[in-house]
């Protein structure tokens, strides 16, 4: 129960940050934040509420939302590059890497287990990069960006441990 409250609190705080970016950030920041929030919620729904997505239209809605989020991310990345906001552009790249690994973990769990050494090395590099970016923002006095980055790290760490817990269920069942 406490676990669900924690997850809900993290998502609520991220939604507040997205609202702040929508209200007072640049267009790229708003698109970036909104896209990641959509992806996080879709991951949560797909892993925790799988039975909700049995119907054709619901599956189409979920995939449509993801496609829209991907398009928003591409637009945000292009905006960052054009505005020479390199930290934000690198941040998007690293998060795309994390999500790609997560997708791989979900869809090919056996392959992830077989190559766990490489898998962990890439994960370490990606998360180290993200921590580095959060620290850079903190050192530059951009505390809101640093706080937002830390919150995203916590959200994805939680999601990843959650997925691995489910993976355990699957492995022990077979």
């Amino acid at each position, binding site marked *: 129960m*406490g*676990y*669900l409250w*924690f*997850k809900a*609190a*993290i998502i609520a705080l991220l939604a507040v940050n997205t609202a702040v970016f929508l209200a007072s950030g640049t267009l790229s920041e708003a698109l970036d934040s909104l896209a990641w929030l959509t992806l996080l919620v879709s991951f949560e729904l*797909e*892993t*925790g*509420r*799988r*039975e909700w997505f049995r119907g054709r239209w619901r599956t189409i809605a979920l995939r449509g939302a993801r496609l829209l989020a991907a398009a928003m991310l591409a637009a945000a990345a292009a905006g960052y590059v054009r505005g020479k906001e390199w930290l934000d552009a690198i941040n998007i790249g690293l998060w795309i890497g994390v999500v790609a690994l997560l997708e791989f*973990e*979900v*869809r*090919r*769990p056996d392959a*992830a*287990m077989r190559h*766990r050494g490489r*898998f*962990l090395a890439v*994960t*370490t590099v990606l*998360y180290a990069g993200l*921590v580095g970016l959060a620290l850079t923002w903190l050192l530059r006095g951009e505390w809101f960006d640093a706080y937002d980055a*830390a919150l995203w*790290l*916590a959200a994805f*760490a*939680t999601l*990843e*441990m*959650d*997925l*691995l*817990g*489910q*993976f*355990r*269920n*699957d*492995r*022990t*069942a*077979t």
Partner: protein
Amino acid sequence: MIDTLLVSLAVTAGLFGLAGVPLRCWQFATGHFRSQIPRHALARATFGLFSILFVTPNALAWAYALFTALRDFGCTSACAQAGIASTIAVGFLGCSYVLLEGFLLTARRRNGSLTGGSRLLTRD
């Protein structure tokens, strides 16, 4: 009003963190959680990685809160707004401690409440 409430919550969590962070560090160091996390190697390795990610800022925030409190309370003269820095430091510790506890809650969770995620992993 809401600001006061949020700061109070953060400081309260920080006060718990003053005792909780060294305890959690000790538990990580002695492998206390080993039996409570998923057994496969990938989960263990990922847990190890995220543990470092969560424990390091907590340990730093704990040390800083303690240092600030000692400096504030050791101040005998010309101490404008003594205690403010300690309160802020303890508040920051509270924020990071809540994230640490939330992470542990997720990692150690038994999957009784799971509703269908394991099916997701077998669909291929």
